[in-house]
């Protein structure tokens, strides 16, 4: 309309809008982590230790040697799965607190099928079957609160919390009465469907628990990203999460999206169970989830419910968790638990604040742009 000046302004603004969006995604957690680091320093100082020494030890015990790296990657795998599980439901506006139970159920499903399959079955067939069994079991557990929410409006928060107890107790009962080896709470070894460890490919990782499920978790992250941001289902799922009334108006079957996203969320958590059962131990053991399902909520929170953010955030939490063992020599191991809590708290408090600041900056850019356009439009007409 008014030629180069307007189009130039529009071009630079679209660029700054993209930059601002990227900043909005990345900056808040980074600021929060810096805050957490400072609080961590104060804590360490209160133990009479030097923060530099503790952090050096933490890094050395995690990223400083192949075994440490392997352990971190192993923990990253489970946390990625449970983080993705929370995020997928979260994008649909649902708060899935049930990843703990879904994770355990997934591991159990994989083990059950692995035990039932003939041990001679080739891995190429057995592995996909067992992985699918894990995801389906997780999906089943996830679908229950999803259907109850979609059909009767029951709060998925309450139902998933309660279902955790039911599922964990049920699994404990089944394993301890029917499937356990004497004097243990674990099943016999699975022969079909186990996955190679990282050490089988790279000898340096020997002894560490990291295994091929890491690749499955990364693939799940990529698939989740594609589903959420590149497909019609993802478009509709996110619309339900943001504005259910607008989604309904846009022809989306909201109850169906609710229960399917809860089922999918459960399937992702269930995949995490494969990490322990088929990747690491080769059997199911009661209590293996060990809080990784709950920690997934924090992972998703810090990862801003974005699949790639979740992979990074899972790495961080896995490092802190493994690092706790490393620093145990000079400070209590609980230090890293506290650090984890501080990270979660600072993200929860700093993120909205940082976001607000960024929004304000974006708004002022917008206002300036609109003014520029109005004046250029005015000249043209």
């Amino acid at each position, binding site marked *: 309309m008014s030629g180069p000046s307007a189009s130039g302004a529009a071009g630079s603004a*679209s660029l700054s809008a993209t930059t601002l969006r990227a900043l909005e995604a990345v900056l808040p957690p980074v600021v929060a982590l810096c805050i957490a680091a400072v609080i961590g320093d104060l804590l360490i100082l209160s133990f009479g230790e030097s923060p530099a020494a503790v952090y050096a030890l933490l890094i050395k015990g995690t990223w400083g040697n192949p075994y440490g790296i392997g352990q971190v990657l192993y923990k990253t795998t489970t946390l990625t799965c449970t983080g993705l599980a929370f995020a997928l439901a979260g994008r649909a506006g649902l708060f899935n607190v049930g990843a703990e139970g879904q994770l355990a159920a997934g591991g159990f499903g994989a083990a059950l099928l692995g035990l039932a399959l003939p041990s001679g079955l080739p891995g190429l067939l057995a592995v996909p079957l067992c992985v699918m069994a894990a995801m389906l079991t997780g999906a089943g557990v996830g679908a229950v609160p999803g259907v109850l929410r979609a059909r009767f409006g029951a709060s998925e928060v309450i139902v998933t919390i309660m279902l955790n107890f039911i599922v964990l107790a049920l699994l404990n009962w089944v394993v301890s009465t029917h499937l356990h080896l004497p004097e243990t709470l674990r099943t016999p070894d699975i022969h079909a469907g186990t996955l190679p460890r990282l050490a089988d490919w790279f000898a340096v990782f020997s002894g560490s628990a990291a295994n091929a499920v890491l690749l499955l978790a990364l693939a799940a992250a990529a698939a989740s990203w594609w589903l959420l941001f590149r497909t019609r289902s993802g*478009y509709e799922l996110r619309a339900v999460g943001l504005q259910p009334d*607008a989604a*309904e108006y846009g022809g989306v079957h909201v109850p169906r999206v609710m229960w399917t996203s809860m089922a999918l969320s459960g399937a992702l958590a269930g995949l995490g169970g494969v990490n322990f059962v088929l990747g690491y131990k080769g059997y199911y053991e009661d209590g293996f989830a060990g809080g990784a399902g709950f920690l997934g909520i924090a992972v998703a929170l810090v990862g801003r419910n974005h699949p790639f953010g979740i992979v990074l955030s899972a790495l961080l939490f896995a490092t802190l968790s493994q690092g706790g063992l490393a620093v145990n020599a000079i400070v209590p191991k609980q230090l890293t638990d506290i650090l984890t809590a501080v990270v979660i708290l600072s993200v929860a408090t700093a993120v909205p604040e940082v976001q607000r600041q960024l929004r304000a900056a974006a*708004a002022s850019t917008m*206002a300036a742009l609109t003014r520029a356009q109005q004046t250029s439009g005015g000249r043209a007409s």
Partner: protein
Amino acid sequence: MNAVLSTDAPAGPLAIDIESVVKTFGGVVANRDASLQVPHGEIHALVGENGAGKSTLMRVLAGMYAPDAGRVRVNGQDVTGWKTTEAIAAGVGMVHQHFMLVPTLTVAENVVLGIEPRAGWQVDLPRAVREVEALCRKCGLHVDPEALVADLSVGEAQRVEILKALYRGARVLILDEPTAVLSPPEVQELWTVLRALRDDGGTVVLITHKLDEVIAVSDTITVMRAGATVSRFATAGTTPRDIARAMVGRDVNLHLDALGAVDAAALSTTSAAPTAGAPRRDARLVVHNLHLRSDRGTPAVSDLSFEVAGGEILGVAGVEGNGQTELLEAIAGLRPLQQGRIELDARLLSGLSVRQRADAGLSHIPEDRHRRGLVLDYSIADNLILGQQHRFTTRAGLDQAHIQRHAAEQVARFDIRPPLPALPARALSGGNQQKIVIAREMGRDFGVLLAAQPTRGVDVGAIEFIHAQLRAARDAGKAILLISADLSEVLALADRVAVMYRGRFVTVLPRQACSAELLGPYMTGAAA
């Protein structure tokens, strides 16, 4: 322009004297150089387009915001940056667009809330009722002090808001868009109350963008544009055209706008022409014997039947909450029918999903764009495919190239500003947000359009544009069901006008036979 701003202030301090106020929100300038001078005993209209900064300026006056720069004086005292409690104590009261009442309490309880008369430890309710009753009588505000607020009509609830301000001793009353939700008789009653206040020496500031109201009730007018005061003149001798020009900064095609019952002769000729020229076409939307329930399970629409022909706009007037929302939702497939039949181009709609109805040729501009019409955090491009997402899909997922191409086309065609499809809809002004909805629903092929409050909260320039789009669609043979709480909009656009009251059409008249005076009684049920 600023020459008009000469302060012809009378002797003695002004009731309100705001000078060069600046107020920004994180870089967004809401007020820059905003001024307002109001003497005692005056009804002062503060007009301007959406986003001109009227509400912000009044919130500065009422103590809700502290200005970044500038000075605020009330009765000659410098009160810049005061707090709401101080404003109330000084007799400045504000009635907001959205009511702030407790629905489960009675009128009297709401009025005295926070400054209850006490008898020992207890609230002296009988005294509260007596005092509120006395206040009602004194001001001519009719409302039962012992009625529950939940049972009141919108007009009555607004009276309670005014009572609240007066009970606290307000001598300066600020009303933010008070007539948006009122029927014409309720509006007249409000004017009576405001005039009585003025004659009693009180001061009223009325924020509005309905120009007929400005002319009807105000003594002086201040116009704001883009955060600044641009002119101030006496109402006597001013025409709506003058005010509109000052608001927008250019001439506006006034008789086509929802600017009030302005020029009746011009109005009826423009809307009569197309119907006279075009032959009457077949009914494209048929509603027969429709019964609907509200969310609370009460009957919302009963035994409603009507048809909309191609090339026709059927305007439904009426006070909100008389079944309009339910009717729209039922046609759109968002609400189950209790009984009845809906047909689009002779095709039965019952049993079809929202998506199937859209594919059958139904377009829908929903009444609440923030709740239904847009996903505010989605980009302009993504919002432009809402409801059509199945048409933008390939086997590999959403067809991003197609979505971007489509967005670029629609943004240009419907002049959505700024023209950046990647921006979230939330970042746009109300008028441009509505243009996204209009572009999506009217920028594709359709046979029947449901247009609910198509220009609510939209500025004058965008109203003109949206009305032109609706007329063009009508002239192209589409059937349009227009539902609007704004009677002047219905009168400006419709070929036939129906008045909806308590779930029924109490009258259906050709446009030529209608006037605001005639329809008013139907809207309140007085002539049903």
